[in-house]
Each structure stands twice: as structure tokens, then as C-alpha cells.
């Protein structure tokens, strides 16, 4: 039996006004992006408590993406600036404890950037594929090496 290729699971929290619209646009433009992305539509990138990013990793995701509007374009004026601070906190905590902080990605993708959406998803999936499985999944379990 040939070895199955590693297919990462990437959970994306996409804001309703920009990145989710970009995902739609990428779809209607028939641009290809990998099926490893599991999008979750949220009203704003700032509504995602950073603990949910960690939670997704612990539930077995290999990476998480938080997608929001470009700085200055937030539908709620300042949501994405707050999201950026939160992601900075999560990444610093992960790095400080010796986890891989590049398993959390923050991207600004506006509603008209369907091609950028597809490109980012392709690139990040490739990147995570190369990195391999996350061992964060085994936090507080008996498994893992």
C-alpha cells in the first residue's frame, strides 16, 4: 500500500465582510484552493477569542488562519487592529513556551481579493504540508511521541 500523502487540516476564521467575501469571490471566479481549509465565518476578526485559535490546534487542526479586512477597512472601524494585538499575544505565548508560532496565521484579505485568497491558502497549505503534523493536538493526552 502506498503511503498516503499528509493532508493538513487548517481551520480558518474569516471575517464576514472581507475574507469570507474573498472566499466567495475565489469560488465564483473558479480559482482553485485546497480542500484542507475549513472556513468558519465570524462577524469580525476581533470576535475570535485567541483561546479558540489554541483550541482549534488542540482539537487536531494543523494550523489556524485568522482572516480580516485590511487595516483601516474594518466594517466595525477598529476590529482588525484589536485582532492583530490578540494574534501578537497568541504567537508570543506559543513561541515563549517552545511551540511553533507559525501554526497561527493572520492575513488581511479584502472582499475583492479573490486571487489573493486562493494564493494565500495554496501557499500556507504547502507550507504546513512541508512542516508536517502539529503535535499540539496531543496536549493533555496520552498520545504523541
Amino acid at each position, binding site marked *: 500500500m502506498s503511503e498516503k500523502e499528509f493532508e493538513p487540516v487548517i481551520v480558518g476564521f474569516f471575517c464576514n465582510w472581507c475574507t469570507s467575501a474573498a472566499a466567495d469571490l475565489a469560488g465564483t471566479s473558479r480559482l482553485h484552493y485546497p480542500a484542507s481549509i475549513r472556513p468558519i465565518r465570524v462577524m469580525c476578526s476581533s470576535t475570535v*477569542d*485567541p*483561546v479558540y485559535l*489554541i*483550541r482549534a490546534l*488542540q482539537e*487536531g487542526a494543523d494550523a489556524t488562519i485568522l482572516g480580516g479586512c485590511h*487595516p*483601516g477597512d474594518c466594517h466595525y472601524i*477598529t476590529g482588525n*487592529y*484589536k485582532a*492583530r*494585538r*490578540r*494574534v*501578537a*499575544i*497568541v*504567537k*508570543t*505565548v506559543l*513561541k*515563549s*513556551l*517552545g*511551540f*511553533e508560532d*507559525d501554526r497561527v*496565521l*493572520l*492575513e*488581511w484579505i479584502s472582499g475583492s481579493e479573490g486571487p489573493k485568497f486562493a494564493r494565500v491558502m495554496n*501557499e*500556507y497549505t504547502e*507550507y504546513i504540508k512541508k512542516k508536517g503534523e502539529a*503535535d*499540539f*493536538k*496531543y*496536549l*493533555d*493526552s*496520552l*498520545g*504523541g511521541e
Partner: protein
Amino acid sequence: MSNDMLKKFIVDAFEKGLIEAVMAPAATKDSYTYALITKKEDVDKITPIAPVMQWNGADMLRRITKLKKSERKLLAILRPCESRTYKELVKFNQINPENIIVLSYDCPGTIHARNFKYEPVEPENLVEEIKNGGKSEKIRDACKVCEYPAPIPGVGDIGLGLVNTDPVFFSLSDKGKEFLGAMGITEGERDADAWVEEHRKRREEWMEKERITGGRKGIEEFLSSCLNCHNCKDMCPICFCKECFFEDHNVFDYESNKFYNWADDKDGIRLPTDRSLFHIGRLIHMGTSCIGCGLCQQACPMDIPLYRLFGIVGNDLQKVFNYKPGVDDNLPPVMEFREDELHEFEGLLGGEE
């Protein structure tokens, strides 16, 4: 001695009508709690400089002013870490600073409350040890590596110098200056720089040596005896939320199948679930404002040296935002933002294209 002197100061202030109430530690059978007194006759019941910090004094002030500002002029005697907590909680709109005067002093450190219970120490003993710029070996880990053992200008109102000198008062704010003036006390000076520097040097060494690394294995081993009792959260003065993400919340309630699926996926899970997630989540929520009082560690029934986790990771977080909790005048990082910042955290390689 320094305690007697402070008591005299308090009686004087009562007599001059500058204060109407005092919050300071008072001895109990085995420990020290905070006490609130409103009459000068009660002054003998308190011990302003106590060898134990069972609670954070700023947390007590938060309880007093929770519903309404302080209706009487209150003098609060706080350690430097508590006065920094006070300042941080004022910024978080948890304490109304109106009518409150904070006095803080060169802190000799405090003894772990449990150790004190079995090996009591006279309050003056610790003060004696810092008279010549030293420190006691009995004090808590967090106190040994304290970054700000001396009162800081701009934090609190009145300072009391004990290092390398007979006790001297000095003002930390305009309010304090006015107060000392009305008391008829001339401000003194003392040289505590070398003493503070020593603490900071120990802190640097400690941070290098005691850092928790190794990702999953590292944190799991560190927390391996955690009871999930959440005492560290209850004692943390920064964890003031009425509704905690990790409690009274059905985020962590699942059907049985969810547990079985986890066990399938992860080759067996530990119960109760989410012990490490609780600590990582708490770091994310309060780490940027961690004062470093070390009460999380004192509260741990399993003696996990939690200050190694919160102190060091908190320090890393504060470096990212260039923020010193309780010292800086700007708002805590979780309360504000700038438009042009933190680009290294955007995108895969940092920086927007």
C-alpha cells in the same frame, strides 16, 4: 520600629483629619490579612509592614470601590507590587482612585504564607535585613526576583524609604506631596539603587535559567501535578472578570461521544480535560498585565512554581508591547491599539505585501 513609626504617622494623620480610614495588614493567629480601620484607637491592631502577603491589597481596594467611590478619605498601605496592581486596576476601571491615598515602602519581601504558618517570623526581622541593602533568604521566589522592590515615582502617592537609612518619607505624586506637607513632614532621601539593581540582576539570571521550554512536553511536565482547582486564577488580582471564560461557561461541556472520539484520535486523553489549555488561555488573557506579585504560586496547593510560567511569559509579552504593567501611564495592551504596529505578526513571513 518601622511599624511603630508608621503607626505614629497614621495616628497623626487621623488627628490632623487628613484621613478617615486606613487599610493595612493585621495579624491573625497564623498569618496576616488586610484590615480596614476607621478609628485611631484601632491603630494598634494593625501591622502596616507585614511579613506575609496573603491577598493582594489592590484586590481589596477593588472590592471596596466596586459599586461606588470611596466615601471616606482612605489611606491604603500597599507593597510596591500591590501599588502597581492598584495603578493597573485603575486603568482597567476596576478601582475608583478618588479619595484614596496609597503609601508604599521599600519592600523586604514576604514569606510564603504556608511556610510562615509553621515558622513564624517577627515583622521587624525582615525589615532589619534590608536595612543594609540585603535580603532575607526566607522570602518567596517572586520576591527574590522582584523587578520593583522600591516605591516608584508616579505609582501611589507616598513612599517610605527603609534601605540604607532610618525610615524617611518621600512623595511619589502631587497628592502625596500635599499630604506630607499638611503632615509637616520634610521629605528625605535614600540611596536604594544598588539594592534594586541587585534584585534586577537576580531577575535576569532567573529568567534565563527557569524558562519553561520544550512546547507540549515542557508545559505538560511543568503542570503534571495541577489539580485544576483554579486557585491561581482566583488569587490573581488581574483576573477580575465577573464571568471567566474558563468557568460558568458551557464552552467545555460535551456529549460523551466527543470524549470517546478524542480518546480515539489522540490515543487516550487525560481527565479532566483542558488543564494546560486553562493555563495557556489565562496567559493569553492576563499575561500582558501580569504584575509579578507571585500570588498564583503561593496559592497553588501542589506547589507548582507558577511564577516561572506567568512571570517569564508575561515578561515576553510585555516586551512585545513595550509596556510595563502598573508603571507606564499608557493603557494596558489589551485596551488599546495603534494603527501602525506589529507588522511582524502579519502574514506568513511577517510584514504585509
